[in-house]
């Protein structure tokens, strides 16, 4: 069955329908990981995005029950070159094609994904449509232009947990953390649990009182989709927490929230960082870690020196070696730090797992 992908600037690609048939809209972004498609698909940060996989063979290991990062697939559309005809892995419980169909995810295969990627790199991430229902380019183009923009989108409410839940520490309980779910991935509380942390995952709209009512020793700000510029409520909440000297650790969207809480601005990157091979340098140790990224926005802070904020001095702690984008912040006078990337990996290398240790140590200092 034929399918079309049409971008908001009018470029189109003809291919075959993949996964569910129908029509879907979203922001077209490319992801460069060669493994971990199941984690990518289930990462809430990809909500309302059409993900283009640059790796040509997708679905080789099928799907399994252990690897999803949330209860459902979040991408709004999926673009691959050569979908697997057969799943091969000892843990596989089904094929990706079936899974996409079951969850109603519309995709397209067989297109020149590299040409599309290069286009997005040059022109920036943009709105797109995939359709196997309407094969008229002009008509699809009109529809794309009417679809909502990512800039200015407030999506946390759409992905956050409706009610709080708890992930217990593994082994001896050491600390309790309240995690703000802006689109949290399952591996994050898992990584904390491994370090003796019990995590209360809370809705993104939770108030400071609700957060502190969990008895948390600290707050974790999760990753998530959308434009951080719209998250004024979350920023206000975090500022209040900082005023009350609650230790705070943020990642991805959480880094942007913390950055705004400190008074920095955020901006949209041309085409974002989405891959599991991004080199980040820890400015404290000089060491380079290979990290998992999924962000279209970044914090605007000076790379060198310290900035005086309402909460004392704040410095950039991590930087992406590819393009000098701010990848982490650390407060010098408060117990708060954050990174723009994914120390929980899944998918991706485990080089940044030490950040959870740093978080646990920070909590230990308090005790």
């Amino acid at each position, binding site marked *: 069955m034929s399918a079309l992908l049409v971008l908001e600037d009018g470029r189109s690609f003809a291919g075959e329908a993949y996964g569910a048939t129908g029509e879907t809209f979203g922001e077209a972004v490319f992801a460069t990981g060669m493994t971990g498609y199941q984690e990518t698909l289930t990462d809430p940060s990809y909500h309302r995005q059409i993900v283009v996989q640059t790796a040509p*063979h997708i679905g080789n290991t099928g799907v399994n029950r252990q690897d999803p990062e949330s209860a459902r697939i979040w991408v709004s559309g999926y673009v691959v070159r050569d979908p697997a005809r057969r799943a091969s892995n*000892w843990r596989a419980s089904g094929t990706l094609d079936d899974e996409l169909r079951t969850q109603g995810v519309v995709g397209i295969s067989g*297109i020149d994904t590299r040409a599309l990627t290069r286009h997005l790199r040059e022109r920036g991430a943009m709105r797109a449509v995939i359709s196997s229902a309407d094969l008229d380019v002009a008509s699809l183009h009109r529809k794309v232009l009417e679809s909502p923009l990512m800039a200015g989108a407030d999506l946390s409410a759409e992905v956050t947990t409706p009610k709080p839940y708890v992930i217990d520490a593994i082994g001896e309980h050491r600390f309790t953390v309240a995690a703000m779910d802006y689109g949290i991935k399952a591996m994050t509380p898992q990584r904390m649990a491994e370090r003796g942390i019990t995590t209360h995952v809370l809705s993104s709209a939770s108030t400071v009182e609700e957060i502190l009512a969990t008895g948390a020793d600290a707050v974790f700000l999760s990753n998530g989709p959308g434009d951080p510029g719209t998250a004024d409520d979350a920023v206000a909440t975090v500022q209040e927490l900082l005023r009350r000297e609650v230790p705070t650790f943020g990642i991805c969207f959480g880094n942007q929230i913390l950055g705004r809480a400190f008074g920095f601005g955020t901006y949209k990157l041309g085409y974002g960082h989405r891959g*599991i*091979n*991004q080199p980040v340098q820890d400015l404290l140790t000089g060491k*380079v870690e*290979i990290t998992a990224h999924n962000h279209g926005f970044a914090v605007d802070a000076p790379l060198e020196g310290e900035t005086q904020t309402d909460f004392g001095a704040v410095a950039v702690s991590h930087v992406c070696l590819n393009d000098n984008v701010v990848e982490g912040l650390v407060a010098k006078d408060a117990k708060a730090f954050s990174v723009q990337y994914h120390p929980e990996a899944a998918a991706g290398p485990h080089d940044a797992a030490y950040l959870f240790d740093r978080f646990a140590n920070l909590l230990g200092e308090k005790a």
Partner: protein
Amino acid sequence: MPKRTDISHILVIGSGPIVIGQACEFDYSGTQACRVLRAEGFRVSLVNSNPATIMTDPEFADATYIEPLTVEFLERVIAAERPDAILPTLGGQTALNLAVALHEGGILAKYGVELIGADIDAIQRGEDRQKFKEIVERIGAEVPRSVVCHTLEDALTFAAQVGNKIVVRPSFTMGGLGSGLARSGDADEVRTLAARGLAASPVHEILVEESVLGWKEFELELMRDKNDNVVVVCSIENVDPMGVHTGDSITVAPAMTLTDREYQHMRDVGIAVLREVGVDTGGCNIQFAIDPKTGRMIVIEMNPRVSRSSALASKATGFPIAKIAAKLAVGYTLDEIPNDITKKTPAAFEPTLDYVVVKVPRFAFEKFPGADPVLTTHMKSVGEAMSIGRNFTEALGKALRSMETKASGFWTRPDDDLTRDELLARVSIPTDGRLYYVEQAMRAGASVDEVAAATGIDPWFVDQIALLVELRAEIVAAPAVTSGLLRGAKRHGISDLQLSLLRPELSKDGLGDDAAVRALRLEHGIRPVFKTVDTCSAEFEASTPYYYSTYDEETEVGHTGRQKVIILGSGPNRIGQGIEFDYSCVHAVLALREAGYETVMINCNPETVSTDYDTADRLYFEPLTFEDVLEVVHAEQQSGEVLGVICTLGGQTPLGLAQRLKDAGVPLLGTQPEAIELAEHRGAFGRILTDANLPAPKHGTATSFEEAKAVADSIGYPVLVRPSYVLGGRGMEIVYDEAHLSDYISRATEITPAHPVLVDRFLDDAVEIDVDALYDGHELYLGAVMEHIEEAGIHSGDSACALPPITLGGADIDAVRTSTLALAERIGVRGLINVQYAMASDILYVLEANPRASRTVPFVSKATTVPLAKAAARIAVGATIAELRAEGVLPRTHDGGDLPDDAPISVKEAVLPFHRFRTPAGDQVDSLLGPEMKSTGEVMGIDANFGMAFAKSQAAVYGSLPLKGTVFISIANRDKRAIIFPAMRLHDLGFRIIATAGTGQVLRRNGVPCEVVGKFSEGPGNIVEMIQAGEIDIVFNTPRGAAGNSNPRIDGYEIRTAAVTVGIPCITTVQAASAAVQGIEELSRGEIGVRSLQDLHASLAGWRAE
């Protein structure tokens, strides 16, 4: 922290001759290292015995020593150069072992030399199996489980825990006696093997280890800097499961069948192993096995150095491991080194691929008829091709058609007449070309699961073959070949040739006709596009033009303004077509770049310098087939002005394409295909010889024994017989009598009037001469005259030779010069020509002429200091020899036939792979030389006189000639007179001489004391046992007659193979025996020294200027 300033002079150790398992990938890595270190301002000295390498070109180091890679010679080089540091991790296992030996011998300490890039403890932790096992366990990862057992019950209990698939290794037995592999999972098999193993062990002890045969096999290429930053450059998955050496496996990058969790676990373990072993800076390679049923992962081994896989990984990803390793070794960290391809991003990252890379090994079993073709953990392949496609099927198809074998992809050779079950049985044993049987088995109805179960190949890969089988059925059944069908086929890597063979209307008389498919393809506007290898899946803009073709939408080849020259490379290494041709291609690139042309390289061999994206202005990693080359030419013509294509430097592969490319309208540069045809066609070449009044050995053709006998009778025995339809000495034999002739004819099955047998007079005792020359249409430049040390009849590639010639006089050289000029003129050469002559009874016979770059070009260039291939490339684009002399590319005065009397002697010696091959019964294959080439590589010895140069060449092959000890002599009757003097000299030098009865009699009668020993057939105490026991230090054994039944040549078989097995010099011609004795004399005097090429070149230049 930037580069170290406390060292200024670095010695790089190369890897020596090309052998199986250690090929030109180390020329690639060493060349990169030399370039980088010099660019960083270090003085670089280099030692390597292999003259065919780019790295030993004098411009790549400050001091280049072509000397044997032994501790003794290394020490001399160190003493002469006094380097601050040695970089041993880019020269393969050879260099690493030498570094350890230099350390253990106290030489590093004595001269105050530091090892960089590796430290001794780390090397030992990586290489010592027991230490490595402990390390793996310490970091919490697994090695195969094992237990030492003294009873059958213990063995059975353990075996049951691991599914009864085990390896039994008895303690204290020799040569694997009593060891075995239980693969059926059956306890009875374990019982039998364990009982046998316990019985075989003198201490009644066996090691029982869990077998990982058939598990999935992976490799990671890692790099670490001194700040402990680690990156994984590439993951590689073996299509062939555990049990086949990774060098013999079809491999794929990136890994195709791992989830992220499994991959990250592998990455974590790999990094932990690297850190624990303590490789401080540089690259390493770690192999893993994964149980496909449970995902359990085991660490197999690591190499704490740059390896064959890292060359592959570098080409596959665009991340130049050797180059980065060299920078890390001198103090840089990964974040300080820019990524060459993006320029903007650092080397501290992990490449991500948006394409699939497939490597297929190239074997040469046809050269070793007795050898067991079953693939095991001992590497047997002689080369490899790599391909890049946007999916697995495309890359696989390209790789299979890059092989330069009879089959060039599925369906291009006749199906075997086998049933589904027979095919399934056949695919269960790993062999060269197993994938062809997999395809046939599936076509015969075997399912993906059945094939996966029989082969251990992951079902995902098997399903990809199933995809091709389905596509084939669709193509065959379609009423017409539509645009859609064509496009679908091309997207899955099916070549024009394959397509034509599936469609009668597109083939010619049942034979493939790629031109017909091509025409149809162009009619539909279906052409490949070219994408860039950019390390980052298009996330950043790439500035290095490194391309591969694919059937996709958008091409990335940019327009350029300069005139372009396309150079065709030489394809996978195989016997007869090795690194020497890549050398000439690289030189053409260097010369033409310098002359202002834009150079474009096409090649598919990942081991080479030519496929380094730094070499040519543009690199196309593509198969060297008519279809693929034409598409590159088209892409280049679309993006600028193509002056032409050079086909004459890359050996047989590009030469075979020349005529068709010309017919298709592609402008060819240099010697034209018509000229090549003149030299190759026997009739036409015969007429040239007659016209020029040049003698050739008497010859005739025959299609039956009677005819052959008549020819042989008229020209006289011995005769050289060969089929007329093969090149490179295949099927060639020297026949000494009528009975043997009859035997040959009866074995040569395919004799027809169209394919007669050629019968040539064999010039026994002639001196064979090899000549390389340049011709521009006006003037001849004689590059060199080389004299073979073995007599005529041994393939020139296997023969040792000396330059300048050691026994030829001025008049002989004049005759060579005149004859070569006459041939070059009449053939129409514009560039290089190689001529082989035989001098017998003062007559110079022409054996053959090849109007192209020869195997000896690099050797000649090193020995005479003149870059012949560079000059040839310039002649191809119109320069004259006079201009090149004026420019200084060629010497202003003199040529290679005209060297000073005191010029040093260079000796080239061949390196043979016999010890790698065994018969299915486990015996060695015969190590006899003949008209068919068998060597994989070569070394060069250079010194003031012949004896010393020959001694160095032998030292470079065998470690050293013995200076004392025992020599065994067994000589054919015709050689017995010639051996007396050398044997006497050995006696005088204190050697104990042992001989067979006949030889012993002759020696004693001539006053040479010797002891007589029994032949192999004469029972216990025979010579073979003595060799095996290490009692013999060198063997002189000249055979008589040729391989055949009950032939005298066979008598020496056991002797020669025993010598090969224990690795002692085995000299098989009387000429080489004399040379060896001279060499031993020189070595005994102890005055042998080392001299850099730069020094030699300066003195030659001085002489020429006088």
